[in-house]
Structures are given as C-alpha cells and as structure tokens.
C-alpha cells in the first residue's frame, strides 16, 4: 500500500490525468449534442462516451485493473445477473418468437359459492 513516494506521486499524476480525460469526454458529449447530433446517433454517441468514462473510472480510479481475481469474479457475476434480469423484463414486453402462444388466464364463472338459499 505505501510504496516509495516517487511511485505514489507517479500514480497520482496518472489518476489526475484520468480525471482530466473524463472532463474532456464530458465536453465532447455535451458539445456534440449542442452541435445538433440527433436521434439514434445522439443516443449512441452520448452513451458510448459515458461507457468510456465509466471504464476509465472503474479501471484506474477504483483500481479494478489491478484488483484481486475474487473481486473481478464478484462483479462479473453481478453484471451477468443484472443483464439477465433486464433481459427477462425485456422479453416479457417484446416476445421475439413468432407464433408463440400467449396463454391468457380467464376467471372461472361464478358458481354461486357461498350463497344462502
């Protein structure tokens, strides 16, 4: 954890550089939107830039690139789990299989249960 001061100072410069890179990517994202990029292109660009920013912070500032295997496996499992849940939710709204039978549950007719003569 506590290496020589020169090593710590060098890693600090790297971290600050990442922060500056994230700010520049933010300027790029906002700038492109202001310039009038529209529709699906806009979505792809801004979310793509956000993904790069997230990767830089996770890998460098949160030290994931040099983290223990157990932590990486934990996060991979989490990601797969969340993606699976999102996928299941998506499938309930957008069934991709043609001709799939959708079973519709109808209530049983009232047979007068509980009525007194």
């Amino acid at each position, binding site marked *: 954890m506590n290496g020589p001061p020169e090593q*710590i100072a060098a890693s600090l410069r790297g971290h600050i550089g990442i922060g500056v890179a994230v700010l520049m990517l933010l300027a790029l994202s*906002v700038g492109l939107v202001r310039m009038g990029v529209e529709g699906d292109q806009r979505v792809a660009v801004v979310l793509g830039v956000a993904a790069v920013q997230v990767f830089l912070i996770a890998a460098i500032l949160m030290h994931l690139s040099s983290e223990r295997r157990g932590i990486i496996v934990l996060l991979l499992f989490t990601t797969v789990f969340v993606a699976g849940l*999102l996928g299941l939710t998506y499938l309930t709204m957008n069934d991709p299989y043609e001709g799939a039978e959708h079973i519709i549950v109808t209530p049983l007719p009232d047979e007068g249960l509980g009525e007194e003569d």
Partner: protein
Amino acid sequence: MVIPYTVEPRRDSGVYNGKLGIWLFLASEIMLFGGLFSAYVMLRTGAPDWPNGSDLLNVPLATINTVILVVSGITMVLAWTSLRLDRPGSFRRYALATALLGLAFLCIKSFEYYEKIEHGLLPSTNNFYGIYFVLTGVHFFHIVGGVLVLFWHAGPGLRMHRRAPEQFTNRIEVTGLYWHFVDMVWLVLFPALYLV
C-alpha cells in the same frame, strides 16, 4: 478484542475485510441502479411519445454538477494519496474539499428540484418526471451519505490516524471506492436523462 484483517489481507479473499465488504455493497448498488435503469428503459421504449430530456431539463446546471463530481473524484484520490504519504493535514484539506464539492452538488440539485416543483412539475406529472425524480433522488441520497462520511473522517474520525494509521488509510480507500461509484452512476444518469 481486536477485529482481524482490517489491515492485513485475508488468505481466502486476498484483500482486507473493508475492501471485500465495500465491493459486496457496491455489487448490491449495481443491482439497485440497474433495476431503476431498466425501469427507465422499459418506460421509454414502451411509450408512444417520450420527450427529449434536453428540452425539459436544465442541461447547463447539470453539466456544472457533473464537473463538480468529477473534480471531487480527483480531490478524493488526492486525499487518499496524502494519507499514503503520511500527511494527515493535507488529507484533511482534500477530504473537506471533496465533501464541500459534494455539498455544492446537492445544493445545485436541490435548486433544480425547486425550479421544477415551482412550475408544478412533480413525480406524479408524467412518467418522464416520475423516473427523473426517482433516479436522481436515489442518487441524491447516496451523495448525502458520502458527504456525511467524508465530514466525519475529516473531523472527529481523523483521531484514528494517530493510533492506527494504516487502518485509517484503508477506511479512506473504501470511502473513495464508494465515492467513485456514485460519481460513475451520475456519469451514466446525466447523459441518459439530460442529453438524449
């Protein structure tokens, strides 16, 4: 009684307890925000008509807020590095700077909410404002928690540095992990709500 593995790593996990604990917590936070995000995606893709966030929300203010959070991430790293170089005075300054930047974020966000509420735009107005208030509101309270922890560590909590400097440095490391995660969430929320 001394709690083990607050500094030395466990043989099974390879990390000290606090680091394993914070990553488990962050994994649960990924599920929380992942669920909320999926709600946003489902609402948006299922709606016949969905407004552009940039038409309804204050993009300049939110951009300033994003800059504030990114800079606070840098000051957080500077705070942790100060402790690694055994400079508690420097740590206190950077930790306070991070907390104050977080406070500035909260003030600007509160002003944004006030602007909306003043014009009668509430979570109940429509799905767009509903998901906007929920997503940014949950993030807001995460920032509140982080700010409180930072003020504690920069204030009364700093006493621990005198008797257990390595353990205190580890506490700041895990605080930094939480802060960077909250920063990352905003870096996704901002474009998803304000720019598209």
